[in-house]
């Protein structure tokens, strides 16, 4: 087992990936609108976006299952898609974990995992040892002789993961592999995917619409919408410095508030609520020179609740409270119907009770509104 593990770690050379102005059109629908992206070898990139954003199409183009309408794709420096090139999927040196698992129903678990080995390991003993090792790694060695329909969803996805790892390629693709699993299994398998893929040393491109999954897995996150790559950066930057309201919204906000930018100080904007009373407070933005009406997006992690008698913060009203095990999540009304959701506190604030809401300027993201917010 050790020998195989060492071989697996040493043998794989992670692949770089380069998309250049990739465009894919189905009839009149543009699925990918001229996307460019470079992925460094060995990185775990998560493409995050809503349904229809083009992330699955992009992954299928990379795998060779779809052909882009235009643009080029290179894997490990070798062009696999170009104006005059279309390399077959089996010659791209990729492996893939499919959303629907795509296990071959007539093959046992062992045979499914063995499939990508092809002729690369000729000795039966070595092949068996290799497959046994992989099955043990993903925790299903007892199911080696079972068929896919005898397995649970989580077990099937483990087989799919083992099959992808068996390929020993420099690039592994994940097409929403956890979307069909329940929360517990999802969490468990997410950790295994992160660990095993990094252990294998391959570059990984993983697509999902779940922001928590993306933040947990990624070295870099690419946020996609309408076939465009809106932002690609580290999880921390995506969270703290989203380039657009869409990115901020899709990576999780407690609420959106209409505000007015009234000034700037110490690198922050001073904003007041558009239709409410209360003091001004600070917010951050990647946009420069904002003034007037704007949109404020508040991360749940940057909101704190305080008792009503505290003098700082904005007055608020607790609408709902939910126990989450490690504390409480609240829904707070800030006046004029503006809500902040998932506001965490280790102490419980009762429903209909008055509170003070303190907002961290770093977690308050202000974007210029459509109507002449920018000077």
């Amino acid at each position, binding site marked *: 087992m050790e020998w195989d593990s060492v071989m697996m770690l040493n043998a794989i050379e992670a692949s770089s990936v380069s998309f250049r102005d990739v465009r894919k059109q189905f009839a009149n629908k543009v699925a990918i609108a001229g996307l460019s992206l470079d992925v460094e070898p060995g990185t775990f990139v998560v493409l995050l976006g809503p349904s229809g954003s083009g992330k699955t199409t992009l992954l299928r183009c990379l795998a060779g299952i779809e*052909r882009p309408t235009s643009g080029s794709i290179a894997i490990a420096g070798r062009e696999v898609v170009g104006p005059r090139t*279309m390399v077959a999927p089996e*010659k791209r040196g990729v492996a893939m974990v499919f959303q*629907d698992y795509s296990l071959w*129903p007539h093959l046992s678990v062992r045979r499914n995992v063995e499939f990508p080995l092809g002729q690369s390991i000729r000795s039966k003993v070595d092949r068996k040892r290799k497959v046994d090792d992989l099955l043990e790694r993903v925790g299903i060695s007892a199911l080696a002789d079972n068929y896919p329909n005898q397995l649970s969803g989580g077990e099937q996805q483990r087989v799919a993961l083992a099959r992808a790892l068996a390929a020993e390629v420099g690039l592994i693709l994940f097409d929403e592999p956890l979307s069909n699993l329940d929360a517990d299994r999802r969490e468990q398998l997410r950790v295994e995917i992160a660990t095993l893929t990094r252990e294998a040393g391959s570059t990984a491109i993983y697509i999902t619409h779940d922001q928590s999954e993306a933040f947990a897995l990624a070295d870099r996150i690419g946020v996609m919408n309408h076939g465009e790559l809106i932002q690609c950066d580290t999880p921390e930057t995506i969270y703290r410095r989203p380039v657009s309201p869409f990115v901020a919204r899709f990576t999780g906000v407690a609420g959106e508030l209409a505000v007015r930018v009234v000034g700037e100080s110490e690198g922050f904007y001073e904003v007041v609520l558009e239709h409410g009373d209360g003091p001004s407070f600070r917010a951050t933005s990647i946009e420069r020179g904002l003034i007037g009406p704007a949109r404020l997006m508040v991360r749940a992690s940057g909101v704190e609740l305080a008792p009503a008698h505290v003098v700082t913060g904005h007055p608020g009203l607790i609408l709902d409270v939910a126990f989450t095990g490690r504390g409480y999540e609240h829904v707070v009304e800030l006046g004029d119907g503006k809500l902040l959701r998932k506001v965490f506190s280790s102490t419980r604030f009762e429903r209909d009770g008055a509170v003070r809401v303190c907002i961290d300027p770093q977690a308050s993201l202000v974007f210029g509104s459509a109507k002449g917010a920018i000077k």
Partner: protein
Amino acid sequence: MSMVLAPPPLEGSPASSDFEHDVAIVRGRRWRINPGSLILWTLLTLLIIAPVMCFLILAVSPHVFQQGPEWFTLKYVREAFGGATRAGIVNSLWVSAVVATTAVALATMIAWLVIRTNVFGRRVWTVLTWLLLLVPTWMMTLGWGDLLQPFGVASALGVNTHYIFGEFFGPMGIVVVLTTAALPFAFFIVSAALQLMGPELEDAARVHGANRWLTLKTVLPVIAPALLGAFTVSFAETMSDFGVAFTLGYHSHFPLATFTLFSAISNFPANFSVAAVIAVVLILSTVPPILLQSRVMRKRSFAVLSGRTRVARRREFRTVARVAASAGLATIYLVALGVPVFGAVAGSFVRDLGIYSTGPIKLTLAYYRQVLHPDIVGQGLGAPLLLSNQMGLIVATLTGVVALVLARRLVVNAGGWSQRVTDIFLMGSIAVPGVVLGVGYIFFYNQPFITNHFINLYKTLPLLILALVASSLPGQTRFMAGPVSQIQPSLVEAARVHGASRLRAWRTTNLPLVSRVLLWGWLVTFTKVIAELAVAQILYPPSQEPVSVTIQAYLANNLLGDGTAMTVVTLAEMLAVIGVALLTYRLLAPKGWRRIGWSGIQS
């Protein structure tokens, strides 16, 4: 023309085609003519379109093939809608409607019992349905006739069948035999749909307060496309049936359209234009159900087979209900299959079958001696049966390969115009009676520009083989398209991504999933070819009679016992081939292949 057993591939199945190039040089992609499509449509043109069109054009333009002076006339249309030909058309229409409705109702009930309940002998009922599919209608008619006719088997056993005989040799008998013939088509289409319908829908209905009846009403529309498909196919098969029209219809003076068509070309002087009008009516009659079906099926996908597919859950009957349901099924199959087979087998041992006699029943093996070692003028069974088997082997293999390619194209191009055209064309082709195809072949392949410049196949065995391939292809394609469409494209995609070439991906992931349907498709075509009557009757070369023609010649010469014995031997040989093929598959196919059930679902 032939059979269709599974739902056709439908729009919405994920398509994947472009990636299948190693390193492709991309040239102007719009309007590029696909060489595969070109070859396929050329083949279909030569096999089906050109011969059929050559014949159909005679309906209004007999001068085209020197069958009359007119370049354009509606005279033959008027002629066809008068007298016996009109009666034949009207009879065919109402009989087909009744048969299709009855067959779908019966098949839905049987399929539900077999697929969704714990009724006894589920495998037996499925096997019996296969047998029902394999036995041609003229053999069924022969069995019924042997049993019921005066001085037949029943009479020899002391049963007075006078009243039943009178009823049987009329519309009732025709409807019964054709219903039993249409039953398997409807059964396999509906059972595939029922198999794929998870129990969740029924559970959801029951949980939300629906009683059993309301649950059924709620869930049934889910399989509406399958029901419509079953109706369409049953209707088309009945309209195009020749075996019953040629035997039972003729003897009971109840003309059906295929027989009046045959009469129009076989009587002297032959009237090909009237025959062509009848052919047009036969084909057009299937258009409304096809259009209705395609309208209902639009935007639905049957692509459900993946590693995650689960089998449907069965309803557990209590003992009394279970026994009652099983008895009901036994009765249906006894009438549909047991009675005619018993009639034919018993008849082949009854001395002086159908001849006036007052003495007790006398058994004899004389018919079998005559069949196997003929001592009178005329040939025995050996040479025709061997020839039919050889033709069956060639036709079934050729058809299987082409049908699989066509079925795959239907699925890959799902939703596109080429898929729609192919789909409608294939469905329409099923409605083309073998008689029409046979006559079309005579016209097309006897044209001087073909015989002088290309190939002269007229009155040769290859022409008969081509016609039999053409006759089997549409049904066989749609038969395979169902299971092929149920295979998720991602299974092949997974294989390609994990290093398999196009061929290896197909061989290792698709072939195992379609192996059973390929085998059964081959067997169905093989047996159908052996027993095929319409095309064989028209195109067999002199001195090379297929077995069906030989048997009919014996029956036409009032050698009923000999004809019956030949039928029984032919049937037994067909069953033996099926048995050997299935046993070979069981012994040689890998375990994983055998785990995949009829519809590709793991059993």
